[in-house]
């Protein structure tokens, strides 16, 4: 433990960031995306999708009770959770591609933390005023007006947070029914608990922690720093144009003298609007979520003082260096990195699409008895046993015939199954169900095969649809 140094505080309070409102093209893009994404989040559970009478009619539904996931025309069972893995891989690769093209656009425009923080900030501005007003009020005395404003702000925040939690639980059960039950206080306790949890996290993360989530909790800034390169578009202060910074008055005087001062007049607007409180002029940093609000703020100032906009802009390191050495800008969106990501995305996407297209609404998996591997029966035949799982994903009950191929003289029977077709056992599997059947295959010693591979085939008696699985027949 090091020595206590006098005069130094034990802890450092996080400096509160008071982002100022910005106006401009990026702010508009952010508003549009905010409305679109929030609408998707809040309204998606209410979109209906007809799957037949026995199936849920919700387009997007995580049915934990029946362990199914419904996404429009796709229905995923637990055994097919690799689709989810595929989706996560796609999401990661898309993030990489986005990053290679335009830096942390995800963070600045689409990240839920950004969206909800933006919404909360808008509420704050509406109730308490913009940056200067808020700063003034927070250092000033408590007045009745201030208490009223704060109360209103927290009330609206909590309403938004509560609504956020309410939308979340709708993804896990039939949304209209749940909304009705929630209102009548008849919904399951777990629904209220989850609404509570999400209300709390939304309120705390978007209302209080804000940029600290990006700085301390989120792993992406660290990963992103290792993935970005000099060709990626990043929000950048064009120091080649801005430096040296000179106040507006001085720069006017310098210009009269025929000198060329930088375009930055050090007005600090870019810092004032920044939701994470960084100074973009210090260069790209972990705290910068690249939302482009500083671009809007700077453009507003540049317009006012009659200078060219985009002193701060989406730019690449390569171009800054090129301009400094007198060369023209280039932008290379197509480079080995982006091609690789695009190819990987296309590859994974194609694999998933083909898997989805080839998917049948029935499947079979077989598991050989491990102990004993084979049994000699009284007449000297050799018998192997399997546990077979037959999945019926159709919404009606179906009859499946269990056949084996490869052996001629094999006798196949299934425990507890008496019906048969052409000598093969037939099992009935209910709608949307998996049935486990114990199947015994007996081969007379005289007919023991030289080739030991055995193929099980299940055939839907009605439609003739087939699925198969292969295993080995074990003999002494």
């Amino acid at each position, binding site marked *: 433990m090091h*020595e206590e140094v006098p005069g130094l505080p034990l802890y450092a309070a*996080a400096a509160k960031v008071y982002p100022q409102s910005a106006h401009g093209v990026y702010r508009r893009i952010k508003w549009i995306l905010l409305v679109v994404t929030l609408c998707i989040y809040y309204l998606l559970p209410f979109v209906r999708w007809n799957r037949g009478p026995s199936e849920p009619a919700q387009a997007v539904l995580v049915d934990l009770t029946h362990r199914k996931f419904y996404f429009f025309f796709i229905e995923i069972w637990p055994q097919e959770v690799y689709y989810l893995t595929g989706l996560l891989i796609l999401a990661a690769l898309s993030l990489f591609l986005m990053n290679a093209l335009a830096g942390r656009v995800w963070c600045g425009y689409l990240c839920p933390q950004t969206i909800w923080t933006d919404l909360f900030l808008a509420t704050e501005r509406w109730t308490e005023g913009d940056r200067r007003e808020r700063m003034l009020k927070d250092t000033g005395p408590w007045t009745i007006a201030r208490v009223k404003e704060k109360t209103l702000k927290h009330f609206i925040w909590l309403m938004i947070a509560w609504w956020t939690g309410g939308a979340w639980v709708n993804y896990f059960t039939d949304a209209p029914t749940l909304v009705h039950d929630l209102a009548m206080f008849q919904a399951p306790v777990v629904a209220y608990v989850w609404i509570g949890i999400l209300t709390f996290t939304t309120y705390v993360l978007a209302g209080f922690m804000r940029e600290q989530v990006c700085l301390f909790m989120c792993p992406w800034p660290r990963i992103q720093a290792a993935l970005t390169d000099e060709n990626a578009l990043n929000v950048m202060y064009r120091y080649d144009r801005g430096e040296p910074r000179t106040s507006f008055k001085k720069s006017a005087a310098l210009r009269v003298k025929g000198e060329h001062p930088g375009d930055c007049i050090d007005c600090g607007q870019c810092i004032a609007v920044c939701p994470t409180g960084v100074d973009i002029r210090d260069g790209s940093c972990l705290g910068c979520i690249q939302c482009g609000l500083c671009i809007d703020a700077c453009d507003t100032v540049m317009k006012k003082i009659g200078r060219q906009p985009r002193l701060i802009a989406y730019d690449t390191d390569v171009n800054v260096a090129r301009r400094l050495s007198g060369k023209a800008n280039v932008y290379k969106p197509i480079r080995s990195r982006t091609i690789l990501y695009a190819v990987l995305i296309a590859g994974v996407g194609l694999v998933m699409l083909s898997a989805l297209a080839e998917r049948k609404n029935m499947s079979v998996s077989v598991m050989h008895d491990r102990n004993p591997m084979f*049994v000699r029966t*009284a007449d000297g035949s050799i018998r192997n*046993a399997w546990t077979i799982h037959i999945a019926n994903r159709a919404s009606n009950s179906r009859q499946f015939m269990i056949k084996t191929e490869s052996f001629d003289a094999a006798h196949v029977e299934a425990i*507890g199954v008496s019906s048969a077709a052409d000598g093969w056992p037939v*099992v009935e599997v209910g709608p949307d169900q998996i049935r486990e059947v114990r199947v015994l295959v007996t081969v007379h010693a005289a007919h023991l095969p030289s080739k030991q591979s055995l193929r099980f085939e299940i055939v839907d008696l009605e439609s003739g649809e087939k699925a198969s699985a292969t295993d080995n027949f074990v003999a002494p």
Partner: protein
Amino acid sequence: MSAEKRPEIDALTGTATTGHDWDGIKELNTPLPRWWLITFYACIVWAIGYWIAYPAWPLVTGFTKGVFHWNSRASVSDDLKELTAMRATMNEKLAAASLAEIERAPELLSFARAEGGAAFAINCVPCHGAGGQGSKGYPNLNADRWLWGGTLEAIQTTIAHGVRWDADRDTHTSLMPSFGHDSLLNGPDMSDVADYVRSLSGNTPEEGADLAAGQSIFIQNCAPCHGEDGRGNIELGAPNLRTQVWLYGGSKADIMDRIQNGGGGVMPAWASRLDPTTIKALAVFVHSLGGGK
């Protein structure tokens, strides 16, 4: 330390240093974030609460019990109670259904197989093996040769009352005499009859074997239990000798050994240890291993 010692301020960052110097490298004294410190103190408070609430401190002869008197054994027994309650409906159905009904209903069958499998693993595996494959003297339950019957009911009876289990009045009893010890047969006779028995299941007899003599000895001495054709008698637990499945081995030496020494295996009557539903589940499980009749 003296109050007049001022912290050294790093010129570049404006932050105080710790005053330590490692080959010219100095450490900035960066204060902890407040939220971090609050979390840290909250953890300490939590830990103290935990000490009080739960068993935590080892003492000389015991340990602190905690205000809730929580312990892992009670927790397990609670879980077990919950599990029993959860299975109650299925167990009731299992108790009510007949053995044949259980095998016909897929849901009941898989429940009975699971429950029977668990009971088998605890009670039967030491003798019959993990897969019910048995070993010398302990029947293979996967094979289709049964000493006391392979129907669901017969298996249930055997499990419930055991074999040669004297404490149970309804136990299966029978005795293979020890033809050698009791001087019922002499050596050459035993050899002849062993050759004959081996030939019943299709084995080529040894050179010089007198099968006719063996047959006549068999008819006189063995047929009362094993039948004239050697197909055995389930009522008496006399094995079918015309199969490829041998409980004590199928070599001539093995068969001679049985004729010489006689006797038979013992199985406990499980009715005294397991409840009827579990025995039912066990019967279904064993029957479904594949050899059931």
